[in-house]
């Protein structure tokens, strides 16, 4: 040990106590630390999701649950809307990184332009998520429970409500579907067969809330994880849009010109890219696999 202590260490490798050992400013380092802890939170949510999904064994297929697109009626376009949302978020991440790059060159006009586009992209994503949530909560047809405790879904939305179980009327165009959301072979029954099963109904439910959902009858976890994971992410997008907007106001006011650097843009950029990063994982694990 004495040999070690007598060794002289070159000053070029020593941190002299001035500046940061990571050669990164205080604010950026703190943002990274915050992002690490936030990543652990999202990691925890996704881990819990993976655990429940494998422990339960059966799970609805995302391509059957998320197959609607605004303005196309009952057309089946599996995952196209989510892909569009993903694309919007990626593009708004790109405009953010362009704002950061313009900030490095102290180009205030460009920073302003890219920040405005980033805020618009974020708002677009938020509105898409509002539509997605409202569609998910409303559901697409609902299901009946028979006297034997089996579940049958309606093929389309016929506008029934939970209260009408006793007074629901069966018409010639209606059909019931077995395993509509893909847990097992999906099978559409004929109108006569459907009528027979329909007469044995004891319960009707459509849409989703924290206690029940039509996508995975008997298991609230599916909707719960949808609400918590996309909701927590959506909350991050919301706060990201607010932060970006406030930074944009500061850019327009000229605060960073006076300060001599646009590091605040870089810090909010880190947060915004992190939101995109989380969505890449949510997209894969909640919607794709």
């Amino acid at each position, binding site marked *: 040990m004495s040999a070690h202590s007598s060794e002289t260490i070159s000053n070029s490798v020593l941190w002299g106590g001035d500046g940061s050992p990571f050669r990164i400013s*205080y604010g950026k380092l703190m943002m990274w630390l915050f992002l*690490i802890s936030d990543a652990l939170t999202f990691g925890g949510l996704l881990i819990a999701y993976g655990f429940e999904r494998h422990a339960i064994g059966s799970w609805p297929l995302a391509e059957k649950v998320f197959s609607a697109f605004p303005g196309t009626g009952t057309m089946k376009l599996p995952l196209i809307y989510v892909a569009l949302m993903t694309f919007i978020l990626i593009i708004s991440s790109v405009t953010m990184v362009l704002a950061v790059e313009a900030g490095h060159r102290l180009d205030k006009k460009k920073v302003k332009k890219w920040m405005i586009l980033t805020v618009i992209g974020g708002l677009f994503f938020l509105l898409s998520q509002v539509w997605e949530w409202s569609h998910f909560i409303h559901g697409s047809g609902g299901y009946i429970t028979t006297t034997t405790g089996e579940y049958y879904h309606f093929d389309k939305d016929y506008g029934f409500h939970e209260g009408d179980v006793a007074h629901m009327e069966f018409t010639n165009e209606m059909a019931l579907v077995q395993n509509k959301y893909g847990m097992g072979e999906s099978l559409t029954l004929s109108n006569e067969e459907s009528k027979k099963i329909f007469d044995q109904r004891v319960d009707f439910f459509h849409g989703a809330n924290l206690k029940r959902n039509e996508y995975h009858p008997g298991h609230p976890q599916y909707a719960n994880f949808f609400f918590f994971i996309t909701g927590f992410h959506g909350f991050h997008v919301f706060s990201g849009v607010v932060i970006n907007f406030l930074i944009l106001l500061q850019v327009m006011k000229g605060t960073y010109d006076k300060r001599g650097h646009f590091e605040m843009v870089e810090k909010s950029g880190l947060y915004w890219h992190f939101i995109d990063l989380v969505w890449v994982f949510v997209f894969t694990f909640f919607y794709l696999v």
Partner: protein
Amino acid sequence: MERDDLIRDHEYSVAANHDEAHGVATRKSITFVTILLSVLTIVEVGIGWVISRDHSTMWAMTKIALIIMTLVKARYIVMSFMHLGEERKNLKKTIIIPYIFFMVYMITLIILLESNYVNTVILQQELVTP
């Protein structure tokens, strides 16, 4: 009180490395990453559309491919968009290595082992003896 939003280290200072030429190179890499992320997303959705989700080996392989594509996307977002690739090595390691360790053991112990135990031992038994 001393301000902490000033960057004192000259090597890191904004004006030092960020001239117009550097900007051109940065924008070039941004374009590359944008195209890569878009293409990967389109491929992911395309695969999800073409290959049916059943219990086949084909789908199991596809899942692994999708996860690898996700990790590639994540790498480019963190290293290029968040500029972690340009930071010092010690910062990179401080951020990435603990997280990877944490995730690996959480995935192995909770998602793979514990969930399998709950599924086969607890839930399946409940089905047999209600």
